[in-house]
């Protein structure tokens, strides 16, 4: 009797609980205790667990100031992601039966003409490594950010895309789609299984700390970076007047198009302080986490914010640049 009751409950659980429900909350609950952190660069993960700076920092990295990039195998695994716009989530992530061919070869440069222009061919690097990130917060709300593949299973984005310092709450799930064009994610979908932010971001919400690294699981075999490629990161000090490109998934243009498309613009860094770069390159909500790419397609910062004057007129955009502090944190998160 007991056995049959147990079997019934067991079968009921596995037959009637939707698969999507099991897939939710992949990152678990975020509980951060500020007392456990003693250094601004202590690493905090998706559960709020703290890894001390002295435990993860690698003194051998002192003389290294850049990591390598990889253009990817180019192996396609396209899926349609249009439902992300209507529902905020996908029921399934079945591969799309569609012939995607590279009939157009874009140059291996990022810096293009002024003004936000659509990236028509997201198969080629570095556009292939620019990812659309679908997010779910603990209160059930959904949103999106941009991120850049910087390792085979690592994505660089903003701290505010994963943890809200005001509420001290984190995202419960995130899915990453590299190289999206016309609402088709050409290289597949990858779930985040963890993320890292600095304890200083959670404690202060300062723009200089607004960066995060996502850890991804593979999808149908390979990792995201193996298919789509990944950009190297480069430590910088002064980047005033340096030409940068910012590419991502701006909400205003996606709403206008009715489809998820990648857009970008290039320009010069207009001002800076020791940890933050400012520019007049056009950006919009949805582009948080877009890399600042130099002319060699290396990541030298992350776009995070827009600033207005006292009358509400937008005056400049900006984000943390890859200072020695940020480089140390991000490069260690690659391991």
């Amino acid at each position, binding site marked *: 009797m007991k056995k049959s009751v147990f079997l019934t409950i067991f079968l009921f659980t596995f037959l009637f609980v939707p698969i999507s429900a099991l897939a939710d909350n992949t990152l678990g609950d975020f509980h951060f205790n500020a007392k456990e952190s003693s250094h601004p660069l202590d690493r905090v993960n998706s559960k709020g667990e703290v890894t001390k700076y002295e435990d993860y920092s690698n003194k051998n990295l002192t003389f290294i100031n850049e990591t390598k990039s990889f253009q990817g195998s180019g192996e396609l695994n396209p899926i349609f992601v249009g439902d992300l716009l209507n529902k905020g989530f996908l029921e399934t992530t079945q591969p799309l039966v569609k012939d995607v061919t590279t009939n157009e070869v874009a140059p291996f440069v990022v810096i293009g003409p002024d003004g936000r222009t659509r990236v028509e061919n997201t198969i080629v690097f570095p556009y292939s490594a620019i990812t659309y990130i679908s997010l779910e917060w603990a209160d059930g709300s*959904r949103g999106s950010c941009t991120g850049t593949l910087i390792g085979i299973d690592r994505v660089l984005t903003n701290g505010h895309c994963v943890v809200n310092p005001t509420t001290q709450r984190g995202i419960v799930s995130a899915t990453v789609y590299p190289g999206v064009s016309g609402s088709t994610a050409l290289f597949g979908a990858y779930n985040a299984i963890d993320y890292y932010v600095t304890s200083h971001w959670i404690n202060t919400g300062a723009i200089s700390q607004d960066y995060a690294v996502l850890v991804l699981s593979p999808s149908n075999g390979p990792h995201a970076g193996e298919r789509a490629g990944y950009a190297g990161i480069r430590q910088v000090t002064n980047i005033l007047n340096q030409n940068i490109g910012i590419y991502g998934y701006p909400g205003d243009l996606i709403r206008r198009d009715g489809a998820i498309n990648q857009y970008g613009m290039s320009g010069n860094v207009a001002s800076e302080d020791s940890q933050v770069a400012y520019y007049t390159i056009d950006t919009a909500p949805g582009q948080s986490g877009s890399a600042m790419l130099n002319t060699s397609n290396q990541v030298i910062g992350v776009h995070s914010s827009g600033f207005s004057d006292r009358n509400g007129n937008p005056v400049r955009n900006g984000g943390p640049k890859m200072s020695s502090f940020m480089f140390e944190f991000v490069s260690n998160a690659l391991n």
Partner: protein
Amino acid sequence: MKKILTSKKAVFGGLLFLLIGTWVFSEMSNRFSMKGQEPTDEGYIVFHNGTKYFVKGENITASDLENFSDEDVTMFSKKFEEIAILLDDGMKLLGTGIKSGDQVAIWYEEVLESYPAQIKLMQIRKIDKNK
């Protein structure tokens, strides 16, 4: 021994008073400094699942605000022209009497560009429709 404890308590109490005083002063001076300035934006505030949203649009009705749902936050919702999350330390709304559905004026200088955007709220005021 008792004396030491009492003096420690006094120091602690003094420090706490100083801290609260400084915070109240900065909050008040912030409100006064914003008073003469035009707001950065105007729209409606909606409280939903513990999050404060700021929404804008041409023909927003009371029903749109009352029936606010998670779907309204998606990029393709046509209900609102603009939507953003208000980042508030819990103190900006204190004593303002603002409730969900109110028309508000907001002051800010920085917006975090996730979708929806996250506005670093500096000041908020209810717009009195009768004025």
